[in-house]
């Protein structure tokens, strides 16, 4: 099996001086961006994509893994120190992390979060390593109808399982799909929705959407909160040492939630948020002293952090083995892979085992570096939060603009970026989720292609989607997923 060799090779890249340096840079910048209120892993990855141009793909990969894990951890840090979760995946972290920090044990809370994330992330990568190749074996047999049904399921799942209004999520996904139809149609060469503007012939780049809907839109919230100095007061976090009793407490939640989180992460649409809440609730149910939860319990902090990170790695299973992202974050990650010339999918393990195992190795390294280097550095990184907000806002804006310019070399797309920044902000104000939009934008092109390939093969006969058993099953699951919000509503109104 070439797997072990590939893994070793991946480790070799990551453990070279250059590799370590870039993982470190990635983790550092990721943590910093993730700590900013509102800015999450999606913005962090999108902002860093242009930096990877011209880099060796293997080096770029380890750096991106660092950015990703760093940003997730940065989000937890903001939850613990400020009770201000930047992203929904770390809301549950604040339940017990913030009370603990208020007791003056911020350092301990951060250490628990880091160790739990490390364990959850690492266990999950091991599982990913076992499952992803097996799943891609199955997926190699998939044809266009199966792929279409699979992506359809991904889209309906993220819309029906995410929080808030399902209708709004579906509208967001539809709009994302509409935007991707702009440009020359790949199959017939027909220009669509270009208004005779030559700048639109190539369509809109995914970075325009990612940076506009996320980074720029979130800058608006930074602008509103620019006078907020609460961050700089919290620059001292105290000792990050953990006692033996703490580790003993954490053992239970960590071992259970690593597996549960992974499974939930693999499911499209479920992901980190649901995993962290379910993790918190299950641990509270089976705890001997459930009354401690919510008041700074070690278990209450460890559980959502483990589950959250296990789920983020679990989300890589469909991305790597099927080439289909199941969440907003993995959708942007797919964009980052494509920029590096890597096409994830069932053939990745077969044809490019070195890249596949390189990704796995960089996930291990990202996790390790996060624990070894990031945790001791947290006091210093949090000092960076003292950077005056007005300066920071200017720099984030410049980064977003440069990011788009360096893919398009065309000022027109910068105006489009600004436009989507405004749209992203308005969407947030009116509670339209942006994740379905970006996922539909990424999947839309592929979905249309497989739909038309399937129909071309069947000579326009739509029954091909229901006569193929796998595709039929997936479509039924997609429709069933709409029952989830209805059931949830029934429960909540009771």
């Amino acid at each position: 099996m070439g797997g072990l060799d590939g893994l070793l090779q991946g480790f070799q890249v990551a453990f070279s001086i250059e590799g370590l340096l870039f993982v470190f840079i990635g983790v550092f910048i990721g943590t910093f961006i993730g700590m900013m209120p509102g800015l999450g892993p999606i913005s962090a990855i999108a902002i860093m994509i242009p930096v990877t141009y011209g880099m060796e793909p293997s080096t770029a990969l380890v750096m991106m893994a660092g950015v990703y894990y760093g940003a997730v951890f940065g989000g937890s840090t903001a939850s613990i120190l400020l009770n201000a979760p930047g992203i929904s995946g770390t809301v549950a972290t604040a339940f017990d992390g913030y009370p603990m920090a208020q007791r003056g044990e911020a350092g301990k809370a951060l250490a628990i979060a880091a160790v739990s994330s490390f364990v959850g992330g690492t266990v999950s990568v091991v599982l990913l390593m076992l499952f992803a190749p097996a799943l891609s074996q199955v997926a190699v047999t998939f044809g266009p109808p199966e792929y279409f049904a699979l992506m359809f399921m991904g889209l309906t799942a993220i819309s029906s399982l995410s929080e808030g209004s399902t209708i709004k999520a579906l509208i967001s996904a539809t709009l994302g799909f509409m935007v991707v139809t702009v440009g020359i149609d790949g199959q017939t060469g027909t220009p669509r929705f270009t208004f005779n503007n030559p700048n639109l012939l190539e369509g809109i780049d995914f970075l325009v959407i990612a940076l506009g809907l996320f980074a720029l839109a979130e800058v608006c919230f930074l602008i509103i909160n620019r006078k907020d100095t609460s961050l700089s007061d919290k620059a001292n976090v105290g000792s990050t040492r953990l006692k033996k009793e703490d580790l003993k407490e954490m053992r239970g939640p960590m071992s259970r939630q690593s597996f549960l989180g992974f499974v939930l992460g693999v499911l499209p649409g479920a992901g980190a948020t649901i995993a962290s809440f379910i993790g918190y609730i299950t641990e509270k149910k089976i705890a001997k002293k459930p009354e401690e939860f919510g008041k700074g319990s070690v278990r209450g902090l460890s559980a959502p952090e483990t589950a959250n990170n296990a789920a983020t790695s679990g989300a890589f299973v469909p991305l790597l083995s099927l080439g289909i992202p199941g969440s907003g974050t993995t959708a942007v990650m797919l964009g980052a892979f494509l920029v590096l010339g890597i096409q994830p999918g069932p053939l990745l393990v077969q044809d490019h085992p070195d890249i596949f195992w390189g990704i796995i190795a960089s996930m291990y390294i990202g996790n390790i570096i996060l624990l070894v280097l990031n945790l001791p550095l947290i006091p210093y990184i949090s000092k960076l939060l003292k950077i005056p907000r007005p300066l920071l806002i200017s720099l984030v804006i410049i980064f977003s603009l440069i990011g788009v310019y360096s893919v398009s070399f065309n000022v027109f797309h910068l105006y489009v970026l600004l436009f989507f920044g405004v749209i992203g902000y308005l969407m947030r104000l009116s509670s339209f989720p942006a994740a379905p939009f970006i996922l539909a934008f990424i999947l839309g092109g592929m979905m249309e292609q497989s739909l038309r390939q399937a129909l071309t093969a069947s000579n326009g006969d739509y029954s091909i989607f229901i006569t193929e058993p796998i595709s039929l099953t997936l479509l039924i699951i997609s429709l069933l997923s709409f029952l989830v919000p209805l059931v949830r509503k029934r429960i909540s109104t009771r």
Partner: protein
Amino acid sequence: MIKTLNQKISLLLLAIAIGYLYLSYNLKEYPYVPVDSDLVPKVLGYLLIVLAIALFFDKSSETEDEKAKRVVPKKEIIVMAAVGGMIFIYIFLFEILGFLLTTFLFILACSAFLGYRKWGTSLIVALVFPGVLYYVFNYLLQIRLPQGILPF
């Protein structure tokens, strides 16, 4: 009877859907394929109409959280619009004056406008940050940012 924000949005979406459908029906035909390029857009257009109508009649009221999120002081909206305007000017001048000069001016102007008045620090950041970026992109990554009127 257009009361809620959701209903206003739903009308806007309806207009978008109709415009989009109109364009979809006017797409050029390509006769040699069983499925032409207008199929998916048409489906999306009708889907958006259905969803917009569903949103219009959606009874679930906004949560308090969602309402609170929407309250933005007028002053802040003006500030955001002004920053948006500055970005617009930045983009407009980007290829004319070049990356270094426009970025230098943008960082100084935007930070000062948002209330940061330590000119010394501002000046250093406005000089060093674009300089480093320019060097990294142009010389290390081989991505040419516009040179503009400066000789380097």
